[in-house]
Each structure stands twice: as structure tokens, then as C-alpha cells.
């Protein structure tokens, strides 16, 4: 680890690239989240019906049907065979996320993401310990569970408590006590489990991860030879285990972040002062030499060498 590890996360990126340059993808992501929420809201707020419905199912410009594929899957295992409109809508959504990366939904569309990002920000600010860290497989267990409960009860079971649709439907149609679930997620992430919801439990994220496991759009540590071990990318990444194989890989290993857990949020690109990361496609074969052995020496060795 280098001396810069001790600097606040992202400080060096701001110094070298300017504040805007070091927050480019974060700002774009917030814009995207605002867009996908706003486009549903301008109907009920201003009578501009570009999109009707909500994230579970919608109709754009009275022609394009979109359906949440996980909600529809629950409906099917609950033994209802949907009409063609819903199936078509789900296929369109599946195709889009299979192409651009399943968990792009998580970081660019999902309305809960700003909530959990806020919780994480406060978590770091207050210096809360990381708390319960469920295993990587937990969300897949939960995904299986909700499908089993849907089949057993003959209902779209997850929608009874899904905080994502609860929040978005609440904002578009009326909230009731739906905010309690959203607050629950916030407090859970803040005090019980660091990045607990989005990065460990959420079965919707697990589902989209599976959908996009062979997606085209990927982040690559192309310039990994320049890495100076400041650790900022690990500090900002909500799924930090995805970085290691790409960043620390040897020359013959791919610099692409291929884990389906990666949400393509782009924070690692923002926060890197030496521009190690960039967006590319999964077939990018650009040479990306690993770091030479000299750079891997311990700080003590480096001091001795100096």
C-alpha cells in the first residue's frame, strides 16, 4: 500500500482531474436515475403521458410495453400465464439488460440506489463498523426463496414487500406506509450491515446479475500497470471483490471486470487519479500488461530501494 492510502477517498482524483472529472460517472448516474424516475412522474404531475405505469409494467408513447421480468416470472410460477403484451415487455427488458449489463439496472435505474448510497455515505461519515456481512450467495438463496414462496402461495410474493417497487410506485401512485420499508432499508444499511441491501441481499439485483452475466458493456482495468495502490477504487466499489481479478491480474489474465456482480456504476473510473479503468466491451482484446513485480513490493522494500 502506498502513502496515498491515507488520503481521503477520491481526494487525489479531484486534485488531478478536477471535481467534475472525478465525479463524471456519478453525476451521469444520478441524472439517469432522476430521468427514469422523472419520466414516470411527469405524467401524474404535469399531465405529460410519455410513460404510463411504473417499473413493474409500463407503456411508453402508447406503443412500447415494458415489464419487469422478475415480477412476471413470479406470476408464471404462481401459475398464471400472462397475456402476450406482458411477455413481450419482459422480453424487451431482458434483451436490453442482457446486452448492456444486468446490474446496470441497479446503479443507473433503481430508485433504491440513491437511498442505499446515502446510507453508505452516512455510514462512512459516522464511522460505523461494517456489521453483518452476509455471504455472496445469500442473494441467490433469497431469489430462490421468493420464487418458491410465489409458487407455494400462488401470488406475486415479492411484490408484497419489495422496497424498490414500493418506493417507485409510491412516488408515482401514492405511498401510504410504503416509506417504512424504504426507511428500513436505509437503517439496515446504516447500522446493521454496510452495503447490506444492494450488495448482499437484494434478490432483484441477483436476478439482473444473472441476466447480464454475459453482457457486452464491461469496465476494464486496461491501464492497470499504472496502479499506485491508493485503494480508492476498492473504497468506492459497492462490490469490491469484482476488482481484484482484473486489477491484480497478471499480463496474460484479462483486465476486464467480468463478474456479474459489477453494476457498471463507473465510480472506480471516477475515483482513479491515474485512469486505470475505462468502459469497454467484453471482447476488447487491447493488451493490458499487469504491473511488474517491482510495483508489488511491500512499502518497506520500496523505502529500502529509495
Amino acid at each position: 500500500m502506498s502513502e496515498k492510502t491515507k488520503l481521503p477517498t477520491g481526494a487525489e482524483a479531484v486534485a488531478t482531474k478536477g471535481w467534475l472529472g472525478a465525479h463524471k460517472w456519478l453525476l451521469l448516474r444520478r441524472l439517469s436515475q432522476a430521468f427514469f424516475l422523472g419520466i414516470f412522474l411527469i405524467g401524474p404531475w404535469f399531465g405529460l403521458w410519455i410513460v404510463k405505469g411504473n417499473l413493474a409494467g409500463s407503456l411508453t408513447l402508447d406503443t412500447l410495453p415494458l415489464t419487469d421480468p422478475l415480477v412476471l416470472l413470479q406470476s408464471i410460477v404462481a401459475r398464471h400465464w400472462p397475456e402476450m403484451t406482458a411477455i413481450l415487455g419482459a422480453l424487451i427488458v431482458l434483451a436490453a439488460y442482457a446486452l448492456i449489463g444486468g446490474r446496470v439496472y441497479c446503479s443507473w435505474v433503481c430508485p433504491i440506489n440513491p437511498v442505499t448510497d446515502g446510507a453508505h455515505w452516512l455510514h462512512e461519515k459516522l464511522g460505523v463498523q461494517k456489521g453483518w456481512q452476509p455471504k455472496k450467495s445469500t442473494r441467490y438463496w433469497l431469489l430462490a426463496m421468493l420464487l418458491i414462496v410465489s409458487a407455494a402461495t400462488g401470488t406475486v410474493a415479492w411484490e408484497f414487500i419489495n422496497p424498490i417497487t414500493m418506493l417507485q410506485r409510491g412516488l408515482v401512485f401514492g405511498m401510504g406506509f410504503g416509506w417504512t420499508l424504504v426507511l428500513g432499508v436505509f437503517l439496515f444499511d446504516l447500522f446493521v450491515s454496510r452495503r447490506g441491501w444492494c450488495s448482499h441481499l437484494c434478490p432483484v439485483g441477483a436476478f439482473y446479475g444473472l441476466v447480464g452475466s454475459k453482457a457486452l458493456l464491461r469496465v476494464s482495468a486496461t491501464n492497470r500497470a499504472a496502479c499506485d495502490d491508493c485503494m480508492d477504487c476498492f473504497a468506492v466499489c459497492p462490490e469490491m471483490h469484482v476488482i481484484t481479478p482484473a486489477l491484480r491480474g497478471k499480463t496474460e489474465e484479462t483486465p476486464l471486470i467480468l463478474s456479474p456482480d459489477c453494476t457498471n456504476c463507473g465510480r472506480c473510473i471516477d475515483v482513479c487519479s491515474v485512469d486505470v479503468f475505462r468502459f469497454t466491451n467484453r471482447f476488447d482484446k487491447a493488451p493490458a500488461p499487469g504491473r511488474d513485480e517491482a510495483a508489488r513490493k511491500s512499502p518497506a522494500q520500496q523505502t529500502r530501494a529509495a
Partner: protein
Amino acid sequence: MPAAVKAKPIDRRRFLLDAARAAAGCAVAGTLLGAYAGQARALPAEALRPPGALPEGDFLAACIRCGLCVRDCPYDTLALAELGEGPATGTPFFTARDIPCEMCEDIPCVKACPTGALDPALEDIGEANMGIAVLVDRENCLNALGLRCDVCYRVCPVIDEAITLDLTHNERSGHHAMFMPTVHADYCTGCGKCEKSCVLPEAAIKVLPERLARGQLGEHYRLGWEEMQEKGGPVVEGIIDLPDRLPGPGTDNLAAPGGFEPAFKMPGASQ
């Protein structure tokens, strides 16, 4: 730390324990979720589903809570249930006393439904079955008090079929009539316009879900007069039609030998 620095590539014991932990956790969470889902199935009696809605059990499997039916309802009748409101969260419903269904001929809510939770087979709104109006209070209904309110009858979109005014004798005054609003379930769509327009502070006529509004005949029951009409003769061949016991002279009326002449002849009485 000499031991266990590197986990064995396949550690069966640990794998099984982890799997057991996750499965147990999911079993607990799943049971809670299932119990909650079961609870949510109890639809409050005053919450009515949109036209064409599948039976409640199937509806909760089919509805994805997208709200497209709500958006296409021109009268703002439909709303999505909010958490804590009664019907399963996010599902569409309406309350007849607030805004009833206006029974649009083109049924836009059914057309908007992408999943078929509102059955597209419903093409004639007259066939809709959102509930059945019941005159729940036959004492406070103004017509039962001898007045000619008639509002529920007048507003009924299926007037003279779904609601008729049945003439009965007013026992209280002795010489007036009562025109009792009478619902005929075969024609009632459950739109709720009668409940909405009932002039009482609390409606005397209410739309109830079918399970509460109606009884059910045993499946083996046959209505002789209908069967007879269908067949064009007695249902059982060669049946002997015995004389019916009727009041009046010349019958076997045991209570009053000699009896009295009835004011009218019962149909089918052969004398």
C-alpha cells in the same frame, strides 16, 4: 497462524454448513413472507376489483401492480392500494361509495391490462361481475318507509333488469304501497352507482363481493319448472299428478271442513 491459512479447495463440511445456514434463514424469511402473502389475500368487503378481474386468488398471481388500468380509467374510479390500506399493496380497486364504476362501453381498464389479470374475454361491460348490490338495510331504506325515493333504481345503468321496484303492501299505514328496490343478481354488474347515490348518510344499498352477497344452490338441485319448460313436459315420464291440497270447499282441507272459496285460483289447481 500455522493452520487453515489456505482453505482446502473443496471443504465439504463447511460447504454443507453454509448451505444449511442459508437454507434455514431463507426458510424463516420465506415462512414470514408466505404468511404475510396469505393475510393479504383477505380483500376488504368494500374494496371492489375492476371489471373483468379474475377471482381474487388468481388475480393476486396475475396482477403485476403496474397501474395501467388506473391510468386508463377516465373517471379516476380505480386506485392502487397503498401499503396499509386494505387490499394487497399495489393492486387496483375502487370503493363504490367514493367513486363508482361508470361502466364504459369500451372497457379501457381491461384493454390496458398487460397480463390478463383483468380478463380480456370481457367484451360486454354488462357481463361484468365486480360485485352484487344488496339492499342491506330494509328498515331505513326510504322506500321501505313508504316514500318514493327510488334513486338507486333511477341511477342503475341496467334499470328494470338489475334493480326493479317491487310493489308490496304497506302494513304500517294499511292502505299505502311500498316500492322495494330489488336487485337481480344475474343482471347486476356491481358498478356501485346505487350505493354511491343512496341519499342516506350511510347507504342502505351496498355492493358486496359475490361470496358475501349470495347463497349457492346445491349442485344437484333442479328447478322443476325450468326443467319442465326446457323439456316441454314432465321431467319424469309417466308421473301421476296427484291433486294438490288447497283451502276451499270440495278439497281435503282438514283445518276448515267446508272451507272458504279462495280469492284466486292457484295455477294448476284442477277443480
